[in-house]
């Protein structure tokens, strides 16, 4: 990121190029597959951008009602917007909300318009969705203005702290306190199980479980509170949430509309760890990343998760492979390098000899492979044993790797990891740990240069080599159905030893093959970069 001197790791540029070529080769057929499909959530996100919000008295959002009704009536193969704006033009209802309400009781009829009706409906839909896109643009400009006016985080890595009470009105003071204590980024963890809900809950929520529901109103409340704190502190405090699970596209749209700054968004996490259907995930992911690109949101990928289930030394290359794939999918969707918070984690068993040197090698490899991405550095969890004293030392070493390798975003490790949800004092001690290491050793990026062909350089090259090998295996993978090689690889358990075939998993029934006349004004506006 800053002035880079040559050959910190002495990676062979030909091998690096080979790795990227293979990632593209693995990713491209999946992108083609994503382009050929839509999902209920992509269609709902499009309606949200057109301004449809709210839910019925049972909490079922109007976007769900409308998409379901259109699907029942004429199918989603042509997109939800054409039949919806055709129905509005035919006077089925005076506005979108009323149409959704009527549709929920089965008293609105839909058809696929033709000829002039088709053109006019599409135009009307585009104009409605463009309003939402312009709101996203305006929020991006508002962020840029505010950063310019109140100031940015004073240094990198940005300090990332998690808040998770379940009650948005409790989260707010905790988030503000965390920001005052030094957090540059606040992440509101979602309620347990939200990723498997096929709808986005509505309104301000107080009853989350081990986390707080991601809702548009919760986003708005928290962003407003952090704006207030940003002005008070003279630095812009960023807000993070999760664009993952079955409603990834909708949550991305809401994040763009409510000016969230970073979103967790991994290309394969939902498939591997939540058993969400692979095609559903890749379709939803592409749309959500296009929204994030437009909104100026930094994505955070989830490679740390691989290491919670696998050995951090043996599986080090799976992190690199996932980073390369995430990079490919992100760039294809229009994200720029500065928006790629590629994840990795300090999870090597501390009993392994030279564990710290290996961590350094892995972290430097990520830094060298993605020099212009912010990189998100995740603290130890797997080897936090409940011995809080030892855990505090481990977190110190984690911080030291972060300082020595110039990470962009540092998730603060808690010594009470796996013991309790962080106490007030835990957070304070953890921030003291970070501050001490950054102040004492932050400048080591200048001095630290691993010796040529020493353990660190050799290890980094080995992991890169293993990554290329794994990518070669992936692109050569096949299944009987003739799926893209990456899907075949996911199906036979290449990642995290979890087998996820494209014909299984949650949310598969929400995937629809696009017909020739498919239209989605949101995708069109995002891909064209247009505002109208």
């Amino acid at each position: 990121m800053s002035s880079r001197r040559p050959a910190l790791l002495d990676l062979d540029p030909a091998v690096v190029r080979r790795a990227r070529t293979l990632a593209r080769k693995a990713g491209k057929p999946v992108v083609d597959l994503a382009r050929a499909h839509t999902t209920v959530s992509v269609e709902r996100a499009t309606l949200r951008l057109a301004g449809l919000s709210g839910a019925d008295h049972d909490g079922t959002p109007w976007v769900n009602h409308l998409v379901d009704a259109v699907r029942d009536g004429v199918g989603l193969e042509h997109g939800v917007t054409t039949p919806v704006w055709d129905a509005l033009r035919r006077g089925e209802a005076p506005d979108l909300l009323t149409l959704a309400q009527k549709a929920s009781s089965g008293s609105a009829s839909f058809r696929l318009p033709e000829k002039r009706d088709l053109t006019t409906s599409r135009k009307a839909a585009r104009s409605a969705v463009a309003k939402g896109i312009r709101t996203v643009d305006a929020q991006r400009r508002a962020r840029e203005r505010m950063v310019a006016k109140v100031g940015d985080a004073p240094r990198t890595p940005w300090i990332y702290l998690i808040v998770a009470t379940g009650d948005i009105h409790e989260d707010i003071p905790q988030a503000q306190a965390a920001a005052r204590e030094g957090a540059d980024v606040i992440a509101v963890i979602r309620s347990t199980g939200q990723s498997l809900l096929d709808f986005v809950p509505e309104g301000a929520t107080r009853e989350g479980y081990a986390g707080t529901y991601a809702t548009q109103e919760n986003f708005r409340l928290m962003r407003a509170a952090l704006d207030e704190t940003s002005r008070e502190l003279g630095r812009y405090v960023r807000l993070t949430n999760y664009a993952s699970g079955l409603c990834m596209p909708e949550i991305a749209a809401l994040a763009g509309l409510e000016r969230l700054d970073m979103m967790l968004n991994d290309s394969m996490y939902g498939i591997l760890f939540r058993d969400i259907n692979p095609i559903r995930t890749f379709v939803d992911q592409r749309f959500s990343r296009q929204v994030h690109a437009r909104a100026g949101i930094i994505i955070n990928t989830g490679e740390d998760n691989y290491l919670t289930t696998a050995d951090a030394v043996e599986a080090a290359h799976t992190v690199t492979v996932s980073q390369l794939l995430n990079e490919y999918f992100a760039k294809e969707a229009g994200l720029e390098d500065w928006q790629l918070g590629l994840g990795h984690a300090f999870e090597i068993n501390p009993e392994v000899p030279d564990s710290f040197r290996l961590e350094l090698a892995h972290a430097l490899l990520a830094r060298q492979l993605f020099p212009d991405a912010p990189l998100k550095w995740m603290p130890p969890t797997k080897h936090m044993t409940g011995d809080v004293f030892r855990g505090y030392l481990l977190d110190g070493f984690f911080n030291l790797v972060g300082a020595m390798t110039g990470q962009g975003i540092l998730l603060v490790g808690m010594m009470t990891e796996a013991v309790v949800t962080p106490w007030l004092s835990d957070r304070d001690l953890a921030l003291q740990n970070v501050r001490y290491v950054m102040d004492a050793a932050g400048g080591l990026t200048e001095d630290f240069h691993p010796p040529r062909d020493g353990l660190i350089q050799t290890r980094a090259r080995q992991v890169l080599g293993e990554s290329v090998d794994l990518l070669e295996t992936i692109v050569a993978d096949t299944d009987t159905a003739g799926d893209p090689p990456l899907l075949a690889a996911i199906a036979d358990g290449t990642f995290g030893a979890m087998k996820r075939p494209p014909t299984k998993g949650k949310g598969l029934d929400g995937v629809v093959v696009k017909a020739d006349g498919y239209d989605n004004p949101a995708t069109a506006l995002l891909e064209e970069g247009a505002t109208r």
Partner: protein
Amino acid sequence: MSTETPAPGPIVRPYGDTTGDGMVQVSFTLPLPHDKRAEGAALQLAAKMGMSPALLVHAKAMGPHFTFFVVYGSVTHLVDVRDVQVVEREFPLLGSAEVNQAIRSRLGRKLVVVGACIGTDAHTVGIDAILNIKGFAGEKGLEYYREMKVVNLGAQVLVPDLVASAREVGADAVLVSQVVTQKDAHIHNTTTMSAAFREAFPAGEVPLLVVGGPRFEEGSAATLGVDRVFGRGTTPGEVASYLVHELVTPRTAPEPRGEQR
């Protein structure tokens, strides 16, 4: 144990650097601004906890409304080890050959085990340590046992899916691992799971329900509605021995999934 060291107890006190000194350390936060009064309050708490004398070694403001303390002191309490109750292992520890032999000769078919992490818990480290061939603590996992059929469903399995899988494969035992404990998620998930199984299967045909994780209390199986709880450091061999003890070793009722529970 060396011969010079006397047998411990039965009355013991904490040990700092001298036998009987009773030294402990505690840390806590009080909702008070940091001043002399707050420090006095911390010492008052220490006294009420039985620390006498108590030494306030560290006090630090945590924002304007809270203060964090570290207190050292000698506790006046005595511990009588004769009054301590321990849940002893109720089953004999068997080697893998003995486990296979017992299943083969007494059950006459493979013992079917289904394992999963439920809820949003993505930490499969526990279930993998018990099930994967790689195992844990030098012991091979249950997949290694020739007479066991192991189905590892992985992470974030929904309870209804777990029930369905258990039914589909005719599970003798269901192993669930819970690492994440935020807001007692592990307890909530476990009771949900056990209730679902007891609802889905007729009484007496419910598979043996076993949960494991670092934060389960010993002896909490009954309150959680499961048959056995395994804590930190459990090895695959212990689990295998337990399964044989519960499901294979003959009891009054011959059918392993019969009315023993």
